[in-house]
């Protein structure tokens, strides 16, 4: 309860009222608590993020099944975790997923032979509905669980199911009307026989739709094996094909992420010279070093900017001045995010080493758009080992970083950026091992401050939780959920970085 409401409650009051209300006013600014009757817990809050912009949080909780209806409570919170909307939504069907696109929620309800997409605005008002009928219950079940991709502020893209290899992409707006539909290509007469495209949405905004395309042979000796992967860019307004990007294994490029800007698309990731992607380890690869790449395309598909670091000499040039302790020579980089501020790009990454089976320091690379060589910043942290995780060593070297990311070995959590993009903070967690037996959790940030400096502020948690989970906050802030096993207690606390 905030200060002025406390004043209202105890104003002119006698002591009795102070006694009765003392529990209600004991909440300090830093700790976040939620109304008990809303069913909101720290495990069911979803950040509402568009790119790196945090818009708020929501929680959609099931209140149960009564009178032939499933009842859900949609609670919308602002970036300070204060409730701005609280609505009950009921349906005769269970909800399978809910996705937010910046202005609207799309809730997917699944019946036996149809799927309903219900679109609600942030006031909880139904804006539109879309019903997809199926003859086969398995297809409706499958569609309801497919990734529903948000198109910021415009609509959503669903993956429609058909028999066999047939699936299609369809964008619908907030009223549920179809904006466009993309059917996969079907090639015949290739050396591999009949080849079919399998589409997978990577990212979309109101201008571009980037889709991962896998060409798979469906007949002949290579049936059901993939033949080629690449990325295809569509016009998100019309669904028309614009151009292709080949950030692919064949070129030695491991795609880590895509950033969509007005009239530009950037792809970034790891570079494996020679495209030797089949090897299991760095050793098998003959000790070759993996590098990194960044490519930026304009709206016509013309490459505007390219940075390729071969991992060998290029990496020495880039990191040569970094102290030995901070840079492990055989380390690869997993690039978690690419952030743009003004005309500069910043890669936020984390190093890992196949040789020592460790996840290593945080790294930030600052690119002047017109400048080929970036400036590197390395931020030391505790070096945990990942080698003990069963099965991990068997992954292809090319995919090791990806699997480390998926299995949660990296410390990086998320990046948030302010509206004018003058500052950002990439958040990671780590351990403070300076005092043996008294390890503390660190929440760190690779941040660009208001003066344009890359800084590394840290918050050392005074508590000793058994588990820590970090929620995105607005730039410079972070909400930390801490689990205390012995006390059976979970707390959520908002912190502000000192930068």
């Amino acid at each position, binding site marked *: 309860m*905030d*200060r*002025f*409401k406390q*004043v*209202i*409650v*105890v*104003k*002119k*009051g*006698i*002591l*009795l*009222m*102070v*006694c*009765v209300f*003392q529990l209600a006013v004991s909440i*300090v*600014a*830093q700790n976040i608590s939620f109304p*008990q*009757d809303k*069913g909101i817990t720290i495990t069911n809050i979803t950040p509402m993020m568009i790119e790196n912009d945090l*818009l*708020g949080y929501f929680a959609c909780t099931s*209140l*149960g099944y*009564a009178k032939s209806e499933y009842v859900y409570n949609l609670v*919308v919170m*602002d*970036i*300070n975790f*204060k*409730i*701005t*909307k*609280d609505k009950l939504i009921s349906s005769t069907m269970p909800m399978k997923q809910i996705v937010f696109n910046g202005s609207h929620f799309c809730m997917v309800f699944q019946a036996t032979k149809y799927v309903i997409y219900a679109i609600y605005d*942030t006031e909880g008002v139904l804006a539109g509905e879309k019903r997809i009928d199926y003859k086969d219950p398995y297809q409706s079940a499958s569609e309801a669980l497919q990734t529903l991709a948000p198109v910021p502020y415009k609509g959503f893209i669903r993956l429609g199911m058909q028999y066999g290899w047939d699936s299609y992409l369809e964008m619908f707006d907030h009223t549920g009307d179809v904006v466009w539909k993309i059917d996969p290509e079907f090639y015949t007469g290739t050396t591999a026989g009949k080849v079919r495209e399998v589409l997978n949405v990577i990212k979309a905004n109101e201008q571009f739709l980037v889709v991962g395309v896998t060409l798979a042979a469906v007949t002949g000796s290579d049936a059901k094996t993939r033949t080629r992967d690449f990325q295809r860019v569509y016009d998100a307004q019309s669904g028309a094909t614009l151009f292709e990007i080949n950030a692919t294994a064949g070129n030695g490029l491991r795609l880590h992420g895509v950033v969509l800007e007005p009239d530009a698309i950037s792809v970034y990731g790891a570079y494996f010279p020679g495209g030797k992607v089949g090897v299991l380890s760095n050793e098998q690869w003959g000790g070759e070093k993996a590098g990194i790449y960044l490519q930026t395309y304009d709206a016509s598909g013309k490459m505007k900017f390219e940075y390729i670091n071969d991992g060998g000499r290029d990496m020495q040039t880039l990191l040569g001045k970094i102290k030995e302790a901070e840079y492990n020579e055989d380390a690869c980089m997993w690039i978690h995010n690419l952030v743009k501020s003004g005309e500069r790009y910043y890669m936020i990454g984390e190093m890992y080493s196949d040789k020592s089976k460790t996840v290593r320091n945080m790294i930030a690379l600052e690119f002047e758009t017109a400048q080929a060589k970036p400036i590197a910043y390395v931020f030391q942290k505790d070096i945990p080992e990942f080698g003990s995780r069963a099965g991990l060593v068997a992954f292809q070297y090319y995919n090791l970083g990806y699997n480390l990311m998926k299995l949660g070995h990296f410390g990086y959590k998320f990046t948030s950026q*302010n*509206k*004018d993009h*003058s500052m950002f903070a990439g958040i990671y967690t780590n351990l*403070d091992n*300076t*005092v043996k037996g008294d390890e*503390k959790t660190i929440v760190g940030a690779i941040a660009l401050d*208001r003066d344009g400096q890359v800084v590394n502020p840290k*918050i*050392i948690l*005074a508590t000793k939780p058994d588990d820590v989970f970090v929620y995105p906050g*607005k*730039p*410079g802030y972070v909400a930390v959920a801490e689990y205390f096993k012995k006390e059976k207690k979970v707390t959520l606390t*908002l*912190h*502000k970085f*000192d*930068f």
Partner: protein
Amino acid sequence: MLGQDLTFDYQPVRLLKPSDQMIEEYMRRYSEWGNSTAIEDSKVRTTFKKFITQKSEFLSALDSMDMLIYGDSMTDLVERIKDIIIAGNQNLKDVEIKIFIYRSNEANAFSLGEGLILVSTGLLARMPDVSQVAFVLSHELAHDAMNHVFLNLLHISESLHEGEMKRTFQKASRKKEGRNTEINNVLNNFMAVQMAYSQRNEFEADSQGLVYFQHAGFTLDGAIGALGVLDSADYLMFEDTLDLRHYFSFDGYPFKSYWLDTENAALQWARDTTLYMIPDSLKSHPDCDVRIQRIGELAATDSEQIIVVADEAMVMEKLKDVFQFESLEGQLMARDYVMALYMSLQLQTLYPQNIYLKSVTAHALIELAAAFSRNEFLEYVEFADMNYPAGYNQMLTFLHNMNSSTLYKLATYCLQDKLGSVPGHPYIGFLNTLNKHKDDITPEVVNLYAQQYKDDYFTGLLRDKAKSPLPASRK
């Protein structure tokens, strides 16, 4: 404090407070309430005793935080007004009544029972008229005379253990669907009953207080004026935005426009205000409009012998701003550094040369910077909120755009540019020591300060900081 030149400096009345014997005596009396009351039900008696303990602890906490003021010219004034009321009401003559003033920005007064009444500096600062203060005191005297505090505690203790309440609560707890909502409804209903009882007592105190008030020779407009002040006193006294560039732009460190960037403090969505409203049924006091209407109906014709309080009015006028300075000191004592910073800057619009106000500004900046370094910043600095006045939200916005180094720099420039030419001032000396050593105050630093300035209060503050150094990992 009368006689201080506020245009130049201010010395808070830190040493004039109720004696330890006084506080102990009241705590002893409250303890007797718990021991000697004839409540038969043991559970009710235990709950009642718990409430009494809380009451004693509350008084003790206010005293230990040095929030209470007694024996100064502010208390003298309020005591004189009380004496006027008692002089006009024979039935109050044998009652022992004591008034403590407490430092708080809120407009508040309450009776604690046993003849003890607490009045806040925030209330006195808002009431320009002696008769308005007289009505507030009459109201609290009525609470005391009608034993409302005791009866309220007894009522809530009995209600908590009432069989029907327990059954309803257990029934709600057993529900499978909508249990939380049901429990919430039960608790709200319980609170509504308690608040209705409390509101009834307030009407009674208004009614009886009005009799005391008019018998003393005050006129009805004073009572209406007092309720009018209370009605509009939900907010800070100062609401306007400040020209922060004026205070925080220096030759060597100009004001940066992003310090007022609202993005960090702004809300992203239109708030559903209904979610945060407290219904009238859950408020301890009736709406002031209703109270004004009621006393208008109850009031007798004003006495022909209207009391003349010219001397008191003159003292009150002189103390008007002193109440605000003491409220400000209270914010510092309560470690509400944001409010202290805000009030010190607002008061500087009235007293731009006042050394105390400039010192409080620097003090708040240093303490907030230190809180930042300790990762405690958000324990002190809230986010802007639609319920807060524009000026306070601007202050919060400004602070959310700071970091510890900027706050320390601003404090340093405030000390150099605005206070650098004042020699030998203990408060400024304290701030310079704090700013120089930050969280590393050692006993040697304390001794050095004590020798140079010979000021017990600030030496004590430094000593407290030296006693609780931060662990190495937090530095």
